[in-house]
């Protein structure tokens, strides 16, 4: 059974083009493959992303008549760009992977294959057998720990890989990704826009007092009683 595209995007039926686009952007941010890289639930996130893209495409084609005519050009071009974006992403991944494979030993390749299949024990066994502990070894070990949920060790291994080979884009990217994930979570809008960030009485009084002092410096007066 196909899901209702409005429900998939979380908008009301008959929502305007702008509302749909906004909801779509939010969802893309939420289920972006970058966020789920190295996560055991990555396949489910992919599926969700496909569902969202399909719903968006459908609504852009069939959304309320007036909008369709007015925005026809822009909607098709934005559709195009969303898909290009997706395919660019995946081809970039493949390229990265292939570049990696070219100068890697057979064992490293096998370990990566195990990791891609989600076979963590297999990957760990191969890594344990390897003698040459180069930057790539630490990187792969970090990925295995990450997938397992051992984030402390994942971080130190990937950091070590970056320190050993600072020019490698893939390692640096993985390390940045780790930092971004935890930063992004801590700065989520729910937490960040709540009562903590709004000024309390102390701040308000302080600001008023400050403003009053400044005015007085300039010869004026904001609060006449003090």
């Amino acid at each position, binding site marked *: 059974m196909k899901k209702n595209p409005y429900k998939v995007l979380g908008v009301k039926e008959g929502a305007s083009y702008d509302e749909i686009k906004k909801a779509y952007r939010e969802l893309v941010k*939420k*289920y972006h493959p970058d*966020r*789920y890289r190295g*996560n*055991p*639930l990555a396949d*489910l*996130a992919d599926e*969700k992303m496909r569902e969202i893209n399909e719903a968006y495409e459908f609504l852009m084609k069939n959304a309320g008549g007036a909008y369709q005519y007015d925005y026809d050009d822009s909607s098709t071009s934005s559709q195009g760009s969303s898909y290009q974006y997706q395919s660019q992403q995946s081809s970039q991944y493949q390229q990265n992977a292939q570049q990696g494979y070219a100068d890697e030993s057979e064992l490293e390749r096998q370990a990566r294959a195990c990791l891609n299949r989600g076979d963590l024990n297999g990957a760990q066994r191969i890594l344990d057998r390897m003698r040459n502990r180069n930057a790539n070894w630490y990187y792969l070990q970090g990925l295995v*720990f990450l997938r397992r*949920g*051992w*984030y*402390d*060790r994942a*971080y130190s291994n990937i950091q070590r890989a970056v320190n050993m080979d600072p020019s490698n884009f893939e390692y640096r990217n993985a390390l940045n990704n*780790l930092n971004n*994930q*935890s930063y*992004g*979570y*801590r700065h*989520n809008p*729910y*937490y960040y826009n*709540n*009562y903590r960030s709004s000024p309390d009485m102390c701040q308000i009084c302080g600001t008023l007092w400050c403003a009053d002092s400044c005015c007085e410096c300039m010869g004026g007066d904001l609060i006449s009683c003090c």
Partner: protein
Amino acid sequence: MFGYVEPDKPELKIREFEVFRGYYCSVCRSIGRRYGQVPRLSLSYDLAFLAVLLDATSHEAIQGDIVRCFAHPVRKRLLIRPNRFIEYASDMNIILAYYNLKDKWSDEKNLLGGCGCLALQSAFKKAEKRYQEKTRRIEELLGELNRLEKARCASVDEAAEPFASIMREVFECPHVEDERRRKVLGWLGYNIGRWIYILDAWDDLADDVKSGSYNPILEQYRYDGGDLDAFKASIKDKLDFSLTYSLSECEKAYALLGAEKNTGILDNIIYSGLIVKTDKVLQGRCGNNEKKSI
């Protein structure tokens, strides 16, 4: 369990808080009805969260009644009608509480633990019968945890693994039919279990230094008996990363769960309550006295 999973109350709507408390009361009552009055004392917030989370996977409307309860005789309160998820949460509470007390008894010869363990014995037998396979897995993992603690395991990640896996086992509720959803719940459980274990280890640092008990943080960062506050300050960022990353994985799993209801409460806990708790404990403002139930 430890009672670390709490909503960020000032941000919660009153209605949402009442529903949350309604779930808590309902799990508590369900324990009373099926296991007797004494085991009701063992309930913590964490299991109320589990009930809210699991119930969010079904789209049946929430049904509740306003009733009076002898634990809170003054005002009538909302009570969510018991369903399979609420009963599951109460069963898991019995199993976890029993093992927790048993552990206290065998480790520290804590008398309270011994008595509690005896009091929960028959309730535990009943719950065990309902979920034999799960109980067996949990017992296995607890054995693993004990082994790591005896060996004074010097890796926080490794020491957290058995407890995190227990929570995976608990969150993977057999009453959730969709297999993919069970997988999502399992990963959420694993990460929340990891977070609870590490946070609890941090919270216990001072006590463990005093008593010389095992604590994975003291082992991994090689505490040399110097100033504890300086030691804590030197490793705080590392622990903060580990805890926050675990929570970010919880959030990612939650995003994929597609909760059908209770989103107000769940969003509040996942996006805010857990961060607030992390900060409180990391800054050491949470003494043991703050770990109380409603």
